[in-house]
């Protein structure tokens, strides 16, 4: 093989593989629509990894297939192949390149994870929550259990969330308790507001997952967890239990309704009136709070 054509081939293949990888990264969408502030972070990160994976797959699988065809034993051929036992430069190259790629991905994933609130679990917001909502029945439950049940796991954030809901997983339903006293089988939240879910389990481990939010957090018996997010799109999305929780695990589904602020307040008011007919006066107070 002459030198120049090889270089040109390598360059052409490199450019083609890069183009295909970029195209795949931008056009192949495996994920459902994005409905939370965290979703684009995850998706962009996945897009980058999909590009790298596509490029690597094309290069490695392509090389294997080309070698497999090019170096097949032709009829009548005898003997062995070329006795090459290794090449230090080449081996160092293909150890270092993947090492650099995974370190870059590792650092990037730490950054994405920080932005998602992965490092602020039980931070300022969580503590505020415990103190700020002492009046509510659910907060009482939390504080009664003492220090050990303060959320250590999940996704948090700094400052106080706009809306706090206590989520309880049980075979095979999710129950949502609002500080205002509303109990619901479906989650209702306002769009563009910070929502913090305090997740509990009444029996076995469940996992709260909204695919459109790209967020998931297990509900662990004996240890509360938190999940803080901001919904960015009005609509309603499935809430899925992702951790095997018994025979009807697959049926443990509900919906999360993301409302505009007005609709959310309307929903709150209606439900307060319906569930606490004697507490009509608190409606004004609570809606004021927003």
């Amino acid at each position, binding site marked *: 093989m002459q030198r120049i054509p090889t270089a040109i081939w390598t360059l052409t293949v490199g450019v083609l593989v890069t183009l295909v990888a970029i195209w795949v990264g931008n056009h192949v969408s495996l994920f459902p629509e994005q409905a939370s502030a965290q979703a684009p972070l995850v998706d962009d990160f996945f897009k980058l990894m999909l590009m790298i994976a596509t490029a690597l797959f094309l290069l490695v699988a392509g090389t294997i297939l080309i070698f497999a065809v090019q170096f097949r*034993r032709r009829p009548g051929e005898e003997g062995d192949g070329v006795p090459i036992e290794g090449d230090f430069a080449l081996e160092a190259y293909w150890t270092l390149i993947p090492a650099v790629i995974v370190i870059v991905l590792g650092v990037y994933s730490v950054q994405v994870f920080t932005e998602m609130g992965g490092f602020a679990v039980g931070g300022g917001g969580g503590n505020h929550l415990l103190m700020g909502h002492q009046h509510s029945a659910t907060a009482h439950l939390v504080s009664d259990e003492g220090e050990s049940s303060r959320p250590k796991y999940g996704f948090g954030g700094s400052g106080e969330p706009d809306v706090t809901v206590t989520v309880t997983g049980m075979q095979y339903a999710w129950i949502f308790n609002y500080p205002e006293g509303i109990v619901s089988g479906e989650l209702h939240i306002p769009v563009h507001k910070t929502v913090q879910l305090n997740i509990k389990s009444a029996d076995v481990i469940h996992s709260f997952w909204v695919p459109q939010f790209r967020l998931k957090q297990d509900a662990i018996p004996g240890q509360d967890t938190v999940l803080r997010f901001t919904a960015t799109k009005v609509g309603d999305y499935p809430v*899925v239990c992702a951790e095997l929780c018994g025979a009807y695990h697959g049926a443990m589904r509900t919906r999360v309704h993301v409302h505009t602020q007005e609709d959310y307040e309307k929903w709150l008011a209606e439900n307060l009136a319906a569930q606490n007919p004697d507490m009509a006066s608190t409606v004004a107070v609570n809606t004021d709070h927003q």
Partner: protein
Amino acid sequence: MAQAQIPISHDMSVVPENHPKAWRWYHYFTFNTDHKVIGIQYLVFSFVFYLIGGLMAVVMRTELYTPDPDVIDPNLYNALLTNHGTIMIFGWIVPAAIGGFGNYLVPLMIGARDMAFPRLNALAFWLLPPAGLLLLGSFLFGGAQAGWTAYPPLSLITAPMAQSMWCLSIVLAGTSSILGAVNFIVTMAKLRVPSMPWDKMPLFCWAMLATSILTLLSTPVLAIGLILLLFDINFGTSFYKPDAGGNVIIYQHLFWFYSHPAVYLMILPIFGIMSEVIPVHARKPIFGYRAILSSSMVICFVGLFVWVHHMFTSGTPPWMRMFFTISTLIVAVPTGVKIFSWTATLWGGKIRYTSAMLFAIGLLIMFVVGGLSGVTLGTAPVDVHVHDTYYVVAHFHYVLFGGSVFGLYAGIYHWFPKMTGRMLNETLGKIHFVLTLIGANITFLPMHVLGTQGMPRRVAMYDPQFTTLNQICTIGAFILAFSVVPFLINVIWSWRWGPKAGGNPWQALTLEWTTDSPPLIENWHQLPVLTHGPYDYGKQRAEV
């Protein structure tokens, strides 16, 4: 390629004339201490369990053909998914790869007459049938239903009798692994022929060494986790009961401390098989012998520090998610080194497309897909979305079906002539390969999309929007199930009537090919002497 057969000055080096030459069929059903008998016992036992586990998968995929749970009861579905996973890991891949190939090949490859502790070896095998019976018997009590991970509290409250049997079964299988691991390490350290230095030991043996070290370090932890679970279920303790002061997260740490390394336990021997099959059929020295053996050792070490990536959405402190994201990603590097080395081994070869080689190349491509999706899963942000979904199911089936089962098939096609003295039929082998490759991809590729779109794993019922993709998967599973038929016909027919293989049908250079096929009871008349390395294809060799 005849091996120099120089008698060495050692009393045990020559088999006496009156020694029996071969075993009879019924010896394979006894407490036999010959490593070759034990190897075949492991392989046949595990293949039977592969068929049983496969049948369970087919029933589950049939259930998933429609969104509603209309074929079987959801409790039975969960029992099937639990036992499918358990059997495929503890009844098939681990015993076949480590017990089967390891026992059969390690003494032959290092020029030993048997394993270091033959009776311990037989004991290790005979722990498995009761383990298998406990698993299958658990169906009489409803079947363990908490998944192969058996997370408490679910495992504490569903089918206590079946769950206890499940725990005992795994503890037995784990004990068997530990006994086997000790045996492998001592065998390799002490029984190599004097002419074989460590750096001429075949890569399969290196892989088995790494596997054995990993087994010794991780399996006891699983045993502890399960024994505590057993106590919680039966004897009123509360290690994992949150309402009595227990902690459910501790179990997950104990479980995954073994069960992630278990992935490497399954894959390292397969990597070893690949390192033997590829050079022989490509007629090339393996590219980067030292790189491959050191990457096995690196995987063995780093593999102990990645378990928390199974718990990113569970109870994991933030710093741990980051530490384990990075350590998980690092495993990709030594694994990549292996893939690149095998690919480079193909370059400049004269590749024979035997069924063994086809499965080896199939494995390479399947494993690249599984490895790349593994990188995405290793990073905490993406894992949070796809954890416990069909994306994970897709990933580990690419790794464990594409990576392990393909490798086991490659190994069977490669060493069947050695084990039985007869050749397998190549046409049936190629039909088997094509059906397996197509079936596996149709079954597992769509699962990536199912998972990212929102389908959780371990469900007997799902949203109607996922119907089409699930039906494709189910059809793939039927093809995959059918792909076993040509293989079974081939093995049974060839074992009895296949053409005679001779000592070295592939013209391979490792020591196991220097003796008869099948090898006589003590392996060699006279212990062999190494005259060249295990992969010296295409080089000047001392022909004798």
